[in-house]
């Protein structure tokens, strides 16, 4: 097993990448093969993720599975440095789960199936990479790799919708998503360069996060510089995390994206942003972080309330979920910005739980859309009659998202509030209120579209397929399991929180 630890993280990236490459060579004439192969690949990835998560020794904590490969030596010293800490490990697990779920759900992709899975797996590889590298260059490398496929995934397999007052085409959604995310990464890039320059002026040029962090603690990154670099990281990564007011790509992107992509996107991609803020922003520029956190938590609170209120008046199911994602990522922001152990741990747990929850929601909405070709909650009604199981899973996810105790969302949000209450209590109160608003729109949605008398036009709808049932059940079980017994996750997360806050 020691050997496994040596290569586990490398495999974690290589498996999906290799999968993507191999998929290219499958015959285009037999799309099903591509699907099955993708399943095969993501199952292996999931197995690896689980192994990594379980073998992460929370007794020791810190960065583990460290493995360094030289890449470009002097003078820039870029190295392919693997290593995962207590914050990365749960997210690796999350990615494994959601990736498999998304692949399974994507059974319904009919056109250019092969290309779809190539891109999807590449995306998965990128996400894995961000969670497990310790080198800024490669972090950025994988970060972009995760964003890159989105344009085609949405543009080619997405759907355009004509809301009577305005039009959202997939081209628009894809283009906006791509440009906003890359615009965000522009800031990140500049921040990274700034950090590097500081390190090289300190005489030991490096991109390695841990070494940079060490330099930082030795005062090599001057406070004045941190003050302007942290905002770059915060906004840059924040854009991907749906930070207000840089969030608009997210709802439109979700509306346009195909189901599987939405799942991965809201499920894990948005987490990259939050992860980056912790892993890069906080660790490298703590002094800047301390100064800017009040702003960030303010924005996070805006996210929560604003997202919830916007969701309240949406008709399109995907818009509702999209805005609710914005709202929930707000909790993550708040938790991070508290700089309080409990709050931060809550943020990470929230990332995990929201990932599962929102993926489940999108999966179910996708199932409905597949059958009815409608996402307008004003037109849909009484779905429970024909799609009982789907409704059940959606309701479960919805309850999780409104913070129902006994499901993962509650523990996470509760911890965020705890941390926030300790630091900025009025905002914590607002956050709690936001959770209450969530209840309103989720319940309205359930009452309107899922329960209630169904009109005959839906009588031909069929309930969730076996695969959808399987995915749904698995996700619901995870939601409840984490909600009832979060200890296994929190044990790991706590160590990550400890190392993240150790720089302050």
């Amino acid at each position, binding site marked *: 097993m020691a050997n496994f630890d040596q290569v586990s993280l490398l495999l974690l990236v290589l498996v999906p990448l290799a999968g993507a490459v191999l998929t290219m060579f499958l015959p285009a004439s037999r799309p099903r093969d591509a699907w099955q192969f993708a399943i095969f690949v993501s199952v292996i990835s999931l197995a690896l993720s689980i192994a990594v998560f379980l073998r992460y020794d929370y007794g020791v904590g810190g960065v583990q599975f460290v493995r360094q490969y030289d890449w470009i030596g002097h003078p820039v010293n870029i190295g392919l440095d693997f290593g995962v800490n207590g914050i990365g490990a749960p997210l690796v697990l999350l990615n494994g789960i959601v990736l498999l779920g998304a692949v399974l759900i994507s059974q319904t992709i009919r056109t250019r199936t092969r290309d779809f899975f190539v891109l999807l797996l590449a995306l998965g590889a990128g996400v894995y990479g961000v969670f497990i590298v310790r080198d800024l260059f490669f972090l950025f490398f994988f970060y972009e790799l995760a964003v890159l496929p989105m344009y085609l995934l949405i543009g080619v397999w997405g759907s355009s919708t004509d809301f009577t007052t305005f039009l959202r085409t997939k081209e628009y959604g894809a283009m906006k998503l791509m440009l906003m995310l890359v615009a965000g990464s522009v800031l990140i890039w500049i921040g990274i360069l700034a950090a590097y320059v500081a390190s090289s002026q300190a005489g030991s040029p490096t991109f390695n996060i841990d070494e940079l962090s060490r330099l930082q603690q030795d005062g090599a990154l001057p406070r004045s510089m941190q003050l302007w670099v942290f905002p770059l990281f915060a906004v840059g990564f924040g854009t991907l995390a749906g930070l207000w007011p840089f969030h*608009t790509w997210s709802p439109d992107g979700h509306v346009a994206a195909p189901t599987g992509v939405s799942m991965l996107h809201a499920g894990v991609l948005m987490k990259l942003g939050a992860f980056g803020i912790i892993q890069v922003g906080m660790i490298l520029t703590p002094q800047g972080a301390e100064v800017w956190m009040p702003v960030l938590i303010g924005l996070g609170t805006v996210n929560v309330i604003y997202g919830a209120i916007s969701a309240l008046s949406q008709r399109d199911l995907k818009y509702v979920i999209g805005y609710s994602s914005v709202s929930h990522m707000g909790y993550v922001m708040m938790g991070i910005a508290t700089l309080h152990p409990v709050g931060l741990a809550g943020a990470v747990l929230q990332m995990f739980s929201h990932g599962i929850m929102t993926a489940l929601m999108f999966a179910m909405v996708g199932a409905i859309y597949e059958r009815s070709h409608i996402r307008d909650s004003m037109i849909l009604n009484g779905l429970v009659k024909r799609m009982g199981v789907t409704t059940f899973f959606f309701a479960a996810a919805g309850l999780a998202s409104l913070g129902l105790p006994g499901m993962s969302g509650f523990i996470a949000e509760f911890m965020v509030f705890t941390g926030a209450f300790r630091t900025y209590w009025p905002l914590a109160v607002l956050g709690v209120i936001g959770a209450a608003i969530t209840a309103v729109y989720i319940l309205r949605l359930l009452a309107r579209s899922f329960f*209630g*008398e169904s009109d005959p036009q839906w009588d031909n709808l069929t309930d969730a397929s076996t695969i959808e049932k399987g995915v749904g059940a698995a996700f619901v079980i995870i939601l409840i399991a984490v909600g009832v017994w979060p200890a296994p996750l929190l044990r790991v997360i706590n160590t990550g929180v400890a190392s993240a806050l150790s720089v302050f």
Partner: protein
Amino acid sequence: MPLAFLIPVFSFAACPLIILFQRWLPLRGAPLAILAIAGGFAVWVWTLFGFLGASESNPACAVNGITHALTCHFSTDWFEAGLPGVAATVDQAIHLDWGILIDPLTIVLLGLITFVALGVQLYSLAYMKGDPRFGWYFAWQALFVAAMLTLALADNFLLLYIAWELVGLCSYLLIGFWFEQPGPREAAKKAFVVTRIGDVGLLVGILLLWVNVGSFSMTEAFAAAQSGALSSGVTTAAALLLLLGAMGKSAQFPFHVWLPDAMEGPTPVSALIHAATMVIAGVYLVARAYPIFAASPEALLIVASIGLITALGAATVALVSTDLKRILAYSTISHLGLMMLSLGALGWTAAVFHLMAHGFAKALLFLGAGSVMHGVGAHGDVDIRRVGGLRRAMPITAVVFSIGALSLGGIPILSGFWSKDEILLAVSGNLPVVFIVLTILTAALSALYMARAMFVVFFGPEGEDSAHAHESPALMLVVMGALAVLAVGFGWIAFDWPGSFGGFGGFVFYDHAEGFHFNIVLAGISGVLAIAAFVGAWLVYARRSISVASWRARLAPLLKVVENKYYVDEFYQWAIDRVILTTSAAVAWFDRAMVNDVAVNGPADVVRRAGFALRLHVTGHVYSYALAVALGVIALAVFWWLRSA
């Protein structure tokens, strides 16, 4: 006694089993739920005797320093978050346990819940027969019971909050059980959202306590509150925030609006959740957190006032309401108000006592109402003006219902009489005189509307719906009978019978054991008023020898206000439509038009236009290119020349 945690666990287990396997289980798995709760009841009995036998010698038990009651505590780790161990100060981490706290309050509450739940589920077997979602019904029932029991057992605020939300969820699911009709659907939503508003307060209160106490454990929080470790401001704030939660759950004004609507649910649900158990959670919370309230006189006064307002207002509405279940609902609200009032008046024991008495009686009444609906074949609601004289068609129901009504109406020697009397005593003793006056008025009113309901429905002339009414199946009657016995006799355990623990008050008390006090004056007044009310109602509604038409005419405007439930619902409706939805629409528009189309598309557009504008500089005329070159040359040369000179 350590196994008390099993009481909820059985039902927790039953729920998913039923959901998953109902298709194959006999009776859709209903027996499973009933067995679970029966098991819970058995464990309770066992726990009860265990507790009675227990003493400080038991390592898990100790006499609580504040309540001075024997308290047993069992717990095991749940999870830690933040920097457990690492942190120098406690506030860097949170630690949570699965813990149960057993003291007299818990014991009696568990008794009430398990007993009523058992009865109601048996009753439901018959009542819900043939419902398409029979299995689901019992699944949710089981889940509810489990959550409710957990709520009563919880030893820390977080666990309590979890149970608190779960019962809310079950109430949501059960109110909306017949979700095909809009009524239940909306009612369920309303119930969940309105209580949720209160929960915000509760959660914030819990957080506030955590910040100041550094733990979620109730005992520690109480100790801090009593020892003065908390500033009075914090104590009051915490108390009021908890109260907010309590008001939501216990349907106190202004959060009472959801309870009447909740009657859209199946009647047994109303009996269990909205009469006997869930709605008293609020009262329980205040009683449980009493050390905090006790430490803050202001908070107590507010509790009392809210209780009184609720009690009086609800009573008046009940008096004019024409729907049987809604009458009962408002009466529930009113009595919950009385309990709050009593708590506010330091009548802790009285409140708990009334909680029990009312629980049994009201459950009985609801089941009676259910039996009436079953009898006349009504599904949604029963308009008491359209039924009447049912005593011939359904005699047994008539009897048990009347017992319940009399008991709740406070006819002497029935349980309701004693409990209400205790409350009056507390109020008269510890609050300004205006309170006692209004309380007595409320008591009289409650007698009156009970009498009205009872006489109109069962006595007096036949209504058009009562034509082909028929008695309910035996199972339902048995359950009602059992409850009737308690409705009559429960009150008597108040007395210090030889060999008992100095009566109810000697067992369930806060701070000091209470004997049974009896103030002949108050008792006389309330008793006489109650009897008078019933006699009057008999004359008006049964004999029809007196007509209230002239009164109605004279009080028309006032009546209108009351019949419209003081327009509280209208206000809420207005707030939702005009304020919330408008805001959200505005925000959504802002998000699309401003943030997206302007702030996001804008810059992108500017760049694009810049591109299209800039392209013009490549004119296609070669000399303009040459010009550019020339200018470039000059610019460079000049620049360098200047900088070097």
